[in-house]
């Protein structure tokens, strides 16, 4: 890890770690929780959608799975309030294991077909959530017990758990970049058949990336369900959540460490602002889409890759001139 990289990471997580101590308004904490949530989702989506080049639109299915997992176990009692957080690794593990056969089948297809196959998964899970009333409560929703946290700092535990999940997702993302998994995934993304032809364990690396990716999404879903306190099928397994993490990753830059986080830190506040400005009308979705379109037009590969390319080009020109 380069020195600048360490400083960047320490500063980023240091500031975010101290923020709730200084910031009191509940709405700000609430906004930050959602920003961290999407930053984590986008970072985890990036593992499969960015590094491997498999644009999954089914991640919200696993997000919902995590939410219901927590909701079902902790419907009546959460003890001191921290028990659901301790279960999260189990949530991630279960989602990851379930995803192995799903990923194995879905990743027989590629690109747009893969996107369609995975979005089908999303709607299947949503339909299940509506109809398995005995387990999920159907359209009536599923309540989660309210934790005994002090009202003034109610959001704080959720905030810090989201922050830990973000750190985990980014840590894994960093590990991918530094290991042969990331190198193999880059080859798969560029030319999967050729990658297979030079002996890369193509199926294995794809499944590893998919399972870890949706495992994190499920953990985030668990925290979200607990925080919301009530889980409805249309919000837990929501195409907008799937689309959100994809847009943020595209905006910040696919297959980069910081791109998905940057995308989330731009789009989540922007979405909140627009939905506040335009109120109950759905116009905020138009404004939201407009930002995205403009940036894609100017920076088609996302913010970070475009910037690093420009810097690289400049350095190259300077090096040529120095000769």
């Amino acid at each position, binding site marked *: 890890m380069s020195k600048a990289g360490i400083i960047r990471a320490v500063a980023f997580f240091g500031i975010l770690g101290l923020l709730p101590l200084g910031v009191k308004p509940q709405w700000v904490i609430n906004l930050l929780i959602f920003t961290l949530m999407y930053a984590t989702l986008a970072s985890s989506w990036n593992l499969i959608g960015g590094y491997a080049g498999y644009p999954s639109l089914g991640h919200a299915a696993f997000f919902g799975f995590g939410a219901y997992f927590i909701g079902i176990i902790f419907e009546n009692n959460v003890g001191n309030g921290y028990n659901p957080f301790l279960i999260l690794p189990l949530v991630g593990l279960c989602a990851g294991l379930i995803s192995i056969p799903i990923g194995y089948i879905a990743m027989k297809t590629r690109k747009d077909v893969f996107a369609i196959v995975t979005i089908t998964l999303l709607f299947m899970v949503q339909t299940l959530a509506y109809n398995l009333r005995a387990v999920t409560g159907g359209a009536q929703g599923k309540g989660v017990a309210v934790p005994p946290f002090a009202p003034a700092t109610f959001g704080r535990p959720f905030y810090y758990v989201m922050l830990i999940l973000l750190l985990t997702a980014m840590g894994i993302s960093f590990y991918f970049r530094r290991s042969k*998994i990331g*190198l193999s995934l880059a080859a798969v993304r560029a030319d999967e058949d050729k990658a297979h032809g030079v002996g890369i364990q193509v199926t294995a690396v794809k499944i590893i990336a998919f399972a870890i990716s949706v495992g994190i999404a499920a953990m985030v879903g668990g925290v979200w369900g607990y925080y919301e306190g009530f889980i409805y099928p249309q919000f837990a397994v929501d195409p907008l959540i799937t689309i959100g993490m994809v847009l943020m990753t595209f905006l910040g830059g696919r297959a980069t460490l910081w791109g998905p986080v940057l995308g989330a830190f731009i789009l989540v506040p922007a979405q909140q602002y627009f939905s506040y400005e335009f109120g109950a009308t759905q116009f905020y979705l138009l404004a939201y889409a407009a930002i995205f379109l403009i940036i894609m037009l100017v920076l088609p590969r996302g913010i970070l890759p475009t910037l690093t390319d420009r810097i690289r080009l400049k350095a190259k020109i300077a090096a040529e001139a120095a000769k």
Partner: protein
Amino acid sequence: MSALLEVNGLTKRFGGITAVNNCSFEVQEGSITALIGPNGSGKTTAFNIITGYLKADSGSITFQGKQIAEPNPATLYRSGLSRTFQQARIFPEISVLENLIVASGYSWKGLFGARTTKADRVRAGEMLEEFKLSALADFYASELSYGQRKLLEFASVLMSSPKLVLLDEPTAGVNPVMIETMERHIRARHAAGVTFLIVEHDMQLVMRLCDPVIVLDHGAMIAKGTPSEVQSNSQVLDAYLGS
């Protein structure tokens, strides 16, 4: 000399078209065998079947004396059968050095290890040295010229220390100097014990480099022999000139 690769009664149909028709030939160990034939005679299809990219309708392939029941590109590559593609397929978004490392056939343990270990860099560095690409090691592969990409692809499939390398038109679309460079590298590797099977349209190159030459037409072998034998074979002339 024994046959390193044996192809027996290979047949592949695409709909009504029979691309490879009951085709049999063998590649002797230590040879540079050419596979030539007019466009559409099934050369690349045969390559794709031998390397596991396509499933044959019938026929068998034997490599190093063992019949390959279900050809799989990754397994074959790891067991010493490499190939390049007509359109120089490299990985553009990773560096030239990494293009070599990614093709080195690392173990499961290696998969979870560092992206580039010191040993990787040394080995890939030696290969780049041999191919005179060292100065480009840290460039993205996308920044290379077409000829350099062809060289890089060739170099990368040598990373698994193959016994047999299948080259699909190694000099198509590259300049004359690069053709000579490519020929030199093929000869050097041949001298080091690698067997080659080459599909090539540059007949001058084929005639000075390869022996024997196998000629395909309509998916079947019509002639086999030394370059001069093939050149004077009437069936071959018919296939190329039409009659």
